[in-house]
């Protein structure tokens, strides 16, 4: 597999606290890449630096040292509006707590990234309905988030994350607030999106079941990449067992 890379992280460091205070280093020189069309998982215990890493990748936070290049853009050199535009155009997000705007209908929520770009209404409607078909939420479009179940909300959130065809889809524990059936449905959908649309997916999770849907898993421990696991040709349940074994020894 020698495709072009979508994400490339080199020497990434993040230190919290000011110079004269007690400092805490969450990330200590991280290096990895994500290829285009890849489905990568990042695993680690609480406090290992997973969320910090995702915040750097998605420009919600700035690194202390190191480079982050996403789809050819050096994220660390961007400022103000560039950052906002980058988030709006290059990245799609799914959050654990959905992050849907409850004052808008599902349709309006999904259309938001397109509206920000100033897409014509007609094109927008078409894109919304296409993605709604893919995620089988076409009949939910006129509802408000308050009227949807957790699984439905997360599918709406997924639709919003991919409607503008971002370079990479990032998920921060997207199944964290879902029951097991909804979680499996969502992960199946993410796999479908990854396969059919060749969209790169980066999933941050501490749940081995979610991770077993990935092609490659990076294990983070104390701010560094501890080990890496590739699925290769294994079926999902075998890979799941592999992850469990790895986790069992990883934290020792």
């Amino acid at each position, binding site marked *: 597999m020698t495709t072009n890379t979508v994400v490339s992280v080199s020497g990434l460091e993040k230190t919290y606290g000011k110079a004269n205070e007690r400092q805490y280093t969450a990330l200590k020189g991280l290096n990895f890449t994500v290829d285009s069309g890849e489905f990568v998982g990042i695993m680690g215990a609480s406090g290992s630096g997973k969320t910090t890493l995702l915040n750097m990748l998605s420009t919600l936070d700035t690194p202390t040292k190191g480079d982050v290049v996403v789809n050819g853009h050096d994220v660390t050199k961007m400022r103000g509006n560039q950052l906002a535009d980058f*988030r709006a155009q290059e990245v799609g997000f799914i959050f654990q707590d959905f992050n849907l705007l409850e*004052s808008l209908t599902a349709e309006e929520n999904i259309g938001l990234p397109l509206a*920000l770009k100033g897409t014509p209404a007609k094109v927008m409607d078409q894109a919304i309905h296409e993605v709604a078909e893919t995620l089988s939420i076409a009949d939910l479009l006129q509802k408000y988030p308050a009227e949807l179940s957790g699984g439905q909300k997360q599918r709406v959130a997924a639709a919003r994350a991919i409607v503008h065809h971002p370079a990479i889809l990032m998920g921060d524990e997207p199944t964290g607030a879902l029951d097991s059936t909804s979680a499996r449905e969502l992960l199946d959908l993410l796999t479908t999106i990854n396969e059919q649309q060749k969209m790169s997916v980066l999933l941050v999770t501490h749940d081995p079941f979610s991770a077993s849907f990935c092609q490659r898993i990076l294990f983070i421990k104390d701010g560094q990449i501890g080990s890496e696991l590739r699925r290769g040709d294994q079926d999902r349940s075998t890979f799941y067992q592999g992850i469990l074994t790895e986790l069992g020894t990883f934290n020792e």
Partner: protein
Amino acid sequence: MLGKLALAGIKNRRRDYLVLLAGLTMSAAIFYMFANLATNQAFLKANAAISSANIIFGFGAVLLILITVVYIMYANSFLLSMRQHDYGLFMMLGATRKRVGELVFLETLILGTIATAIGLGLGLLMSKFLVGFLLNMLGLHLSHLTAVYVPAIVATGVLYVGLFILASLFNLIKLTRTTVLKLLHSDELANQPKVKPLRQMVQGVLGILFLAAGYWALASIKALQLAAIPIALVTITLGTYLLFRATILMVIRTLRHTGWAKKHLNGFLLGQLNFRVHNYTRMLTIVSLLFAMALGAITVGSGYHRQLPMMAEKIGTYTVAVHDKTAREQKLIDQLHVAHQATYTQKRQGKTVYYNASELRQTPVELRAYSNSGNMNDQKLYTESLKKFKKSGISDLDFLSLALGKVGAYSPKILTAKQFAKQPGKVVTVTTVRVKNLQQDLPALKKLNKLETARFSQPGTMTVGNYQNYEMMLAFFGGLEFIGYFLGIAFLAMLASCLMFKILSGAPGDQRRYRMLYKVGVRESLMRHGIAKEIGILFLIPGIMGVIDVLFGLQMFKPLMAAPMSPYLGIGSTFLIFIGLYAIYYLITLALYWRIVLPQAPND
């Protein structure tokens, strides 16, 4: 321990608390200023030249109390919205409801007491300086006006502390009735109002009918007398409320389905307004009425101020009459914009004053035609031939006033030039001046009049010339004018603060929404514009409604301001000043909202 935690919580949000405290302080200060005027019997007796002033003060006091109640309600809900998350946390940590309840009660009460105390102090200062300044600006002198008036202090203190005790109790009950979880996540619910077309139609039609009835009542105040005001208050309130409910949601719904809603943050803006306006309907109704009252009061006040000179100059013929003018007086006369000037020589002997016919022929005396229509524009100036003048014009009051003695007017006689030369008596020359525009020359006229009255004393009940008429009317209408200005400014300050607090109490809930938008990649400038539009619309709706209310409401003052005065004359500039003040409130609210709501970008 809990007390310490609560103090720490307050410290963290001290700027929000300062806003709250400042608002409450201002409100208490304004209330004191008004109470000082309204309850000071000596002041009222000395200045209430017209019987309606008492009624206006009564209405004003009731309205002000009502607004104060509403105002404290909203300020309190702002306080609660800031604190409920903390209280929820305390309860989760194991604090008993009773303990947290005590904390809430004390916090509200202490804040209220501090605000009242500072407000009273500020009110005393403002009564001393601001009221004096306002009076000076209006050229008024009101007697028996003192800054410190104990009954007013007591009234303000009792009302405010009482209201704060009520607010504390309300907070206590509300907090002890809600579950901990609800307190922690109080801001995450947004209810979506349902739209029922038929009901909305009925509401809309009813609203328009009520409004029409209210406006009719105001316009026919002559027939309804005082009953018009309560009728209008009730019908216009109901009408505005129903109309708001019926139309605003419909408009937003319709807009949401257009292409415009699909551009940038417009959809989000409409979504926000959709669930917000519903909650705000009652609020917006009250605010639009307050807006109307404030604007109406200022308009009427400034209307009197602007139009008194106009009325005064339509009554008599000349503006001032100067006897034996001195060099200093001549200088002042030269400064005037003269429309008509005449100088006559008088010879006074016994109780008779003699005039020279040739002088009167050369510059005939101007007379005014008084008509019965009541419209002062019909009262034109004219002159008549000397022959006619000798018969009728000679008994014109303004002409008689040119020669006033200690007891009254000399009786005039007109002699031919030859006879006049022979006639013995004290020679006096009198110069009458009519200016083009009384308002324009007021400063010079004031000085001239002072010099003239210092040299010649005249009977206290008589006035000579329009300028003296104007001064008399100014004293007469002064009280009314002052009340207009005062009520207007007080209403405006309170209503805008009400709106500000209502909007700000929604801000903590919005924080999360804007955080989401930030994550999704919305530019900060776009969010800023979005917020500016949203709050702008919330300010604009009651503003527009209020302006319409005022335009109709001014009908009420038509009987009081007879033509050529009109309540509608020159309202443009009053509106502009008022809207300017209102806009300042909008900008303050916006700045605070930005500060509370906008997510901080990482900056290290």
